[in-house]
């Protein structure tokens, strides 16, 4: 596992210099490369952020529903009496 660590780090860092794309060609200026990196980060983080937000909201909602059900069960025998 430790032997794989360095290659993984190198591959991850290489992805910061994506030569295969037109937007990152060496003829392009700094602004162009920055725009490319920022939009790549945006396109990566947006779906992760949305999915994460939905997951957290669903977890909160499930907890609320469980609490409501527990309260309902606790109060229903008293109402029956």
């Amino acid at each position: 596992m430790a032997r794989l660590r360095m290659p993984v780090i190198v591959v991850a860092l290489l992805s910061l210099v994506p030569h295969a794309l037109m937007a990152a060609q060496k003829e392009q200026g700094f602004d162009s490369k920055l725009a490319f990196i920022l939009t790549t980060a945006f396109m990566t983080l947006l779906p992760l952020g949305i999915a994460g937000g939905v997951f957290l909201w669903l977890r909160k909602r499930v907890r609320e529903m469980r609490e409501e059900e527990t309260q309902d069960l606790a109060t229903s025998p008293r109402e029956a009496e």
Partner: protein
Amino acid sequence: MSTNTVVLTSELRPEPGPRRQIIPSGVAGMFLFVFSESMLFAGLISAHTVVRAQAAAQAWPPPGQPRLPLGETALNTGALLLSGVILLLAHAWFKKGPSRAVAPFAISIFLGAFFVVFQGMEWVALIGEGLTLSSSVYGSFFYVIVGAHAIHAAGALAGMVWAWVRLQRGRLSASEFQTVQVFWYFVVLVWPVLYLKIYL
């Protein structure tokens, strides 16, 4: 013996109530749709950002191309945002009594329709000034991105009109209201981002 035990435990166990949904199916479906459409707009915005950065600062907007109307569109943006706020109020009133939401819902639809019609008028003016889909990359991005938003706005408006008719007849459920709301909020919230990216 074992049979008796089973009977006793089943008698003591409370009757399972009706299964409650965490989120109504319609709302969940609309969230999925909005999620996919968010990625569509994210892609368009990203493409615009990269192409704009590639162009020299002086060449954006390209020479000879008309400038976009900032002030008028800012006013239109205000109308769209107000529409979203009024829809929020309409939902609060809907919870108190569905009939109370009819008027604010209608105002929200009117403001949304105003936005779409105003955008259409702006397009006609810009085409007249020479900004077309094929006149430049600037024009292409403008019509594709703003046009994609306009299609979504028109679709959401159609949904809101449908919901309003049902509301008037007393048939609109809370989940249907929420489903339409999610779509309209998406249209409302994505627009300021487009305005800042495309117009400024």
